[in-house]
């Protein structure tokens, strides 16, 4: 397929040629390639990327011309960009077989628009527009000619409202769109607008009456928000089918039937919850056979229970090429031959499952499109276009579900011939054929290009198993053969989390641990100082209260792990008079405080150290510094483990990043506030608290003060609090939180334009555009003096505009 493209267009075209109103070319391939070369070589028109599909006849070209001004090398173009479809000399538009399939990427078109219009759109806005457009631009075959923009005074046809809006907005910036004042503020997707005045209806009628059927039928096919392939039967077998099969795509997996001579492409059955319709476009005097089956077992060949077709619900579109309607569905074996009148095939019986086929027995050059979708009776329910993006439907054959259908389909790419930026040869690029969601309802787009997918979340919403789908990589590698930069991507280690301590108590025979209510504490006090108790316990302890090992208030979240309420046992003496308590059943218990996500804000290095710092406040422990790079863009989970026997607590911090959960921090403290039972206890408690404060003041933090087993480095050290453990912790904030201190970015609006952004790519300068500063360059192949070579190097090191 590779074909060397001559450069006559670029070399020979003069501004007089460009000023000419209309050109016609008979060979799309050459035309697009040459146009591409022109635009890619013209400084004012930075880039163009035409995608040419060999699956169709190559009789049409996409004509791009400036209306006014010149495009001579070195001279700015001041005209209005015009992109139109020109009728070929032999009037091939009248045949659908000549449908345009040359698609230029709108994201490459847009910079041409800016420049060709002479717009003073600064780089920031341009980038903004580009980014916006790219978001909504899909390299999908079915919409190959959807982005037809003709602002030259005829019609403006585009199914993507936002693209139209952008171009209008761009033109408005220069006042070049004054004559377009009649345009409405918003253009609904799929609407057709006629320049120079007129209502939508007028425009619509104008298009209907003036556009050739090939264009119209495709516009129609694009408008209802579903897409499919438009193929030439004569080429489908040789090109498209083999193209698919070579890439592992089985036609039978494709939900849109491809009608072709002697081949039957089944349309997978749908789990019906509503009516199913089958739309056949461009039917003329050909013979179709529609087959329907009540189950999803697609027969091999033309058999099965067919639809019975009636004319009762036929609707014919105004252009005479598209018909719609419903037919009733019966379980008979009738084969109905569609002759002049095509139908929408629907089911009035709403069977549970339905498989439909379409077969064309006539081999000619016409293009047929057969699509199936779920729809309401009124056919006004718009679904996201694309194969089987249908609520309630189960696409695929018997036993196939949406969850396994989608990945199997989306993972299979097709290849297309595109024009190489470097060599102007045709290169093979990989695309995934997928429908494009019109901006109706959920405008989240699917972007599949070069085998990658943007919009995994969107696919997930559709019930697609995305585990095997590669996330779209926004960094475009300019040279697939020489990926650069080489970024080592070490796999994070698995969770190194140690096991939690055994909560069972092996010392149950030595002492008892109870949790007491307020009333029980009062009863215990009464009992402790009763004569009976003292006389009994004095046989065991020098001090009766020595039988109380510890008494404190323990703070926690939720409930303690306690067992039965029972009488307290002090030494060998059982408490009486309500001296009871809930026996603590586990020594260690955990409190899961959940997770918080710390998102990036700037989306650049300013979100990370040393620009941004992160701390965490942990109740009963204090403020603890965290490493910003660990926390940023991660889910931070906090779990406390508390020792009920001492109140000691350990706060474990788990960071989940890139799908890997790791325990990265471990801080300790104490959640118990001691309750003194004697004067000696009280004195010891006061001394311990005071010593903790002294340690803080003297700059020699004790373990209790810091409460942290790991204190990471920080550019500066500011202590946000003193000791918040134990007594002070009970008086402090009881809720943990993360403090992120971000810098205020102070970047100039056009900073990248003047100074660039960090790159560290190795490539050729010709692949780049805009401000570029190199670190090193190999200036081979330049026929110049050494003085000049040195000057070139110095200029490149200092920064140039490519």
């Amino acid at each position, binding site marked *: 397929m590779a074909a060397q493209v001559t450069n006559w267009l670029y070399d020979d075209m003069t501004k007089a040629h460009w000023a000419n109103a209309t050109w016609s070319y008979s060979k799309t391939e050459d035309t697009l390639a040459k146009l591409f070369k022109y635009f890619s070589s013209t400084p004012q028109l930075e880039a163009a990327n035409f995608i040419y599909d060999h699956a169709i006849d190559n009789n049409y070209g996409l004509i791009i011309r400036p209306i006014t001004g010149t495009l001579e090398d*070195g*001279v*700015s173009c001041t005209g209005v960009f015009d992109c139109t479809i020109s009728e070929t000399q032999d009037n091939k538009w009248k045949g659908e077989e000549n449908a345009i399939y040359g698609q230029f990427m709108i994201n490459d078109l847009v910079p041409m628009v800016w420049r060709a219009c002479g717009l003073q759109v600064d780089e920031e806005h341009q980038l903004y527009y580009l980014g916006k457009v790219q978001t909504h631009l899909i390299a999908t075959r079915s919409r190959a000619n959807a982005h037809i923009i003709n602002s030259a005074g005829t019609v403006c046809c585009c199914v993507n409202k936002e693209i139209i809006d952008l171009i209008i907005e761009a033109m408005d910036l220069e006042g070049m769109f004054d004559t377009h004042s009649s345009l409405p503020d918003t253009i609904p997707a799929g609407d057709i607008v006629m320049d120079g005045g007129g209502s939508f209806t007028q425009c619509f009628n104008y298009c209907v009456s003036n556009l050739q059927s090939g264009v119209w039928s495709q516009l129609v096919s694009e408008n209802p928000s579903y897409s499919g392939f438009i193929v030439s039967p004569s080429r489908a077998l040789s090109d498209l089918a083999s193209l698919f099969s070579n890439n592992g795509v089985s036609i039978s997996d494709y939900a849109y039937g491809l009608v072709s001579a002697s081949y039957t492409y089944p349309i997978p059955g749908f789990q019906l919850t509503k009516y199913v319709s089958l739309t056949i476009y461009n039917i003329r005097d050909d013979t179709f056979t529609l087959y329907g089956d009540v189950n999803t077992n697609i027969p091999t060949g033309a058999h099965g229970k067919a639809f019975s077709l009636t004319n009762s619900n036929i609707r014919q579109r105004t252009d005479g090429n598209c018909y719609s309607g419903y037919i009733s569905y019966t379980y008979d074996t009738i084969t109905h031959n569609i002759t002049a009148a095509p139908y929408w095939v629907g089911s009035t019986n709403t069977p549970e499952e339905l498989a439909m086929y379409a077969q064309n027995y006539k081999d000619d050059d016409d293009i047929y499109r057969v699509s199936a979708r779920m729809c309401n009776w009124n056919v006004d329910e718009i679904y996201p276009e694309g194969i089987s993006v249908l609520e309630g439907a189960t696409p695929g054959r018997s036993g196939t579900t949406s969850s396994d259908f989608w990945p199997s389909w989306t993972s299979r790419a097709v290849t297309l011939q595109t024009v190489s930026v470097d060599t102007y040869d045709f290169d093979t690029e990989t695309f995934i054929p997928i429908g494009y969601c019109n901006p109706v309802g959920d405008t989240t787009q699917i972007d599949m290009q070069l085998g990658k997918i943007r919009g995994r979340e969107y696919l997930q919403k559709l019930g697609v198993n995305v585990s095997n789908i590669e996330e779209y990589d926004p960094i475009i590698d300019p040279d697939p053969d020489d990926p650069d930069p080489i970024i080592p991507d070490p796999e994070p280690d698995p969770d190194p989390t140690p096991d939690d301590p055994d909560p069972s108590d092996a010392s*149950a025979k030595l*002492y*008892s641990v*109870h949790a*007491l209510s*307020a009333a029980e*504490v009062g009863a215990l006090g009464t009992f402790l100082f009763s004569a009976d108790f003292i006389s009994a316990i004095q046989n065991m302890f020098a001090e009766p209260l020595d039988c109380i*090992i*510890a*008494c404190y208030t323990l*703070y926690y*979240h939720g409930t*303690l792990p306690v067992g039965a309420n029972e009488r307290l046992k*002090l030494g060998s003496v059982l408490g009486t008079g309500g001296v009871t308590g809930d026996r603590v059943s586990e020594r260690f218990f955990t409190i899961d*405080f*959940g997770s918080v996500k710390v998102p990036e804000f700037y*989306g*650049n290095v300013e979100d*990370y150290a040393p620009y941004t710092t992160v701390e965490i406040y942990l*109740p*009963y422990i204090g403020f603890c510094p965290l490493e910003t790079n660990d926390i940023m863009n991660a889910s931070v989970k906090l779990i406390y483990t508390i020792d009920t*026997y001492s*109140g000691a607590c350990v706060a474990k911090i788990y960071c989940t990043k890139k799908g890997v959960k790791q325990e990265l921090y471990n801080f300790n403290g104490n959640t*118990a506030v001691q309750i003194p039972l004697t004067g000696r206890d009280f004195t010891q408690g006061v001394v311990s608290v005071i010593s903790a404060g002294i340690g803080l003041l003297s700059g020699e933090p004790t373990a209790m003060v810091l409460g942290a087993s790991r204190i990471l480095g920080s550019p500066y050290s500011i202590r946000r609090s003193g000791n918040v453990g134990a007594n002070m912790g009970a008086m402090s904030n*009881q*809720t*943990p*939180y*993360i403090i*992120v*201190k971000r*810098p*205020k970015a102070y*970047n100039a609006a056009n900073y*990248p334009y003047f100074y*660039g*952004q*960090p*790159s*560290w*790519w190795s*490539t*050729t300068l*010709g692949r*780049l555009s*805009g401000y*570029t500063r190199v*670190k090193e*360059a190999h*200036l*081979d192949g330049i026929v110049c003096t050494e003085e*000049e070579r040195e000057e070139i190097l110095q*200029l490149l090191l*200092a*920064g*140039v*505009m490519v």
Partner: protein
Amino acid sequence: MLIKIGRTTSEKNRLTKNFTQVAELNATIKEGTSIVNPVFIIHAQANPGTLNYVKAPDWNRNYHILDITALPGERLALKCHVDVLTSFASSIKACQVLVDKQQKDSVSSKYIDDGSYVTECDDVIQCYTYSKSFNNSSTIVITAGGQ
């Protein structure tokens, strides 16, 4: 030598510059000047104030006009310096380079910290609070003697 004189409004560091031609004429090279820093002597045919750029196709070079001096006989001396970027633009574009800075997002990374990001000294503090808190307490009594 045939040269094209005119003007450009492109930045000096732009690889490919726009060029508005004012005249195409024969020029003589002042003796002793080089191909890098030539002085073209021409007969004045245009307002010198509109000139800042020269194309010399025979030398495959373009030149910035550094100075214009009037000479006897209505002649002008155009003191020039070669514009190496535009003269060898196509060759330069084919050269392999290690890119340090680039304008486009697609070939740059905002996560490389080369010290070029500028921030104000003031900070913005954001807190992300966990949904749970210590909301309960119990009095724990540990006594000698087990069950």
